């Protein structure tokens, strides 16, 4: 991959936006500029952590579904359908499900908004 990589480019682009452009922008463009900076920082984190988060999700979900399908979207679909049918209602099963989903969600939150992590 050519250097600097995706997250390095996004980080310097974001710093340039916040340090050089933002102070020169009129007030009504402040909010859109901050939204752009936020989108860039999410994209940078996803570029850095996204693959690992998906690998972990795949491992978590594989333990919850029978005859795990090969792709992550298929696993999510199978799990969602099993949940809707009540396959995870029993207390023990529910505890395992909620804990696994919590791990998956924490990894996603670490990308979307780490400030909101507990």
């Amino acid at each position, binding site marked *: 991959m050519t250097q600097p990589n995706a997250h390095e480019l996004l980080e310097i682009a974001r710093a340039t936006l916040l340090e050089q452009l933002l102070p020169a922008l009129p007030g*009504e463009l402040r*909010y*859109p500029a901050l*939204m*752009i900076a*936020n*989108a860039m920082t*999410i994209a940078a984190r996803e570029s850095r952590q996204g693959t690992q988060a998906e690998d972990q999700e795949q491992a978590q*979900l594989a333990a919850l579904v029978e005859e795990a399908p090969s792709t992550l*979207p298929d696993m*999510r*679909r199978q*799990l*969602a*359908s099993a*949940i*809707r049918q*009540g396959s*995870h*209602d029993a207390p023990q099963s*529910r*505890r395992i*499900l*909620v*804990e696994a*989903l*919590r791990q*998956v*969600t*924490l990894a*996603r*939150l670490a*990308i*979307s*908004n780490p400030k*909101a992590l*507990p």
Partner: protein
Amino acid sequence: MSSSPTISQASDTFVATTDDQHLVEFIRKQASAARVVIRTRKRLSGGAIQENWLLDLLIEGGVWAGDRRWVLRSDAISALPASLDREQEFAVLQVAYQAGVKVPRPLWLCGDITILGRSFFLMEYVPGVAAGRLLSAGAGTQGNARLAEQLGANLARLHQIRPPCAALDFLSIPQRPPALATINAYRRYLDTLADAYPVLEWGLRWCELHAPRNSTLCLLHRDYRTGNYLASEQGLEAVLDWEFTGWGDLHEDLGWFTAPCWRFTRPDLEAGGIGKLEDFLRGYQEVSSLCIERSQLHYWQVMATLRWAVIALQQGQRHLSGEEPSLELALTARLLPELELDILHMTGAEAP
């Protein structure tokens, strides 16, 4: 139902498409005035669904004579299918106003589209702060007890309106129990998406298993939360944004108001990030004799979080489909993990 102020710049569409004389003449007739002058007008922010214009008027003759500040509210170009049109919203506003709910006083509806190109209504302008972050940041360590109490009492007044109501015959009565009808609607929506959402499925399953058997149907605001009312030093001034009103279980509004996702900078203040839950409920029960059960409140907080998650997905779809490319909509969809974590927290091992 926009979670944050819209960024669209004040456009000149109103000016460009309006023949001032038609509007002036409409106001003059309704106010039985001799003469009406529009001194200034300004587009107000907030609301991707409607356009709101602040009008500074001089009225000569009739009961409204003098300087008047009124708000003109019209449909925007892109309307959400779930929301009421302006004619219906005006009817809701009138019913709420007559029931003693704090709302901007509704004045006149104009369904004649030759005047502005779309329906609109006029209401009195109410000053105050609506921004959720500002209100929660200024709530003080113990929260704003008076505002919380007023918000509770005000909601209870709204909830005293029960079906049937001839003026609101366009609102459908939900199937009983309303919670199950909502769960089914969310599942149908999730089934239209390419991806699956196990956390939301779990939340919906939990809600199905815990659905309340009995419920009292009443008129709901359905977006009663910090950010959708105006407050001043005196407390509550007016409740805004009535386009999602409908019949439902009263706990739905209570759950929406108190859900963790609507507490802005103060997650510790359960009443909308501005006050303590007991202050809010005390206000409610000063007006209403209905008993609010904690388990019901918890249940509808889970439903509120699911609803917000579904709306976030819908906002994301509006962007992704190319229907309305928007950074704000795209970022709204990225709120999902926070909402999912709330759902898991409320329905996990320690949950009832």
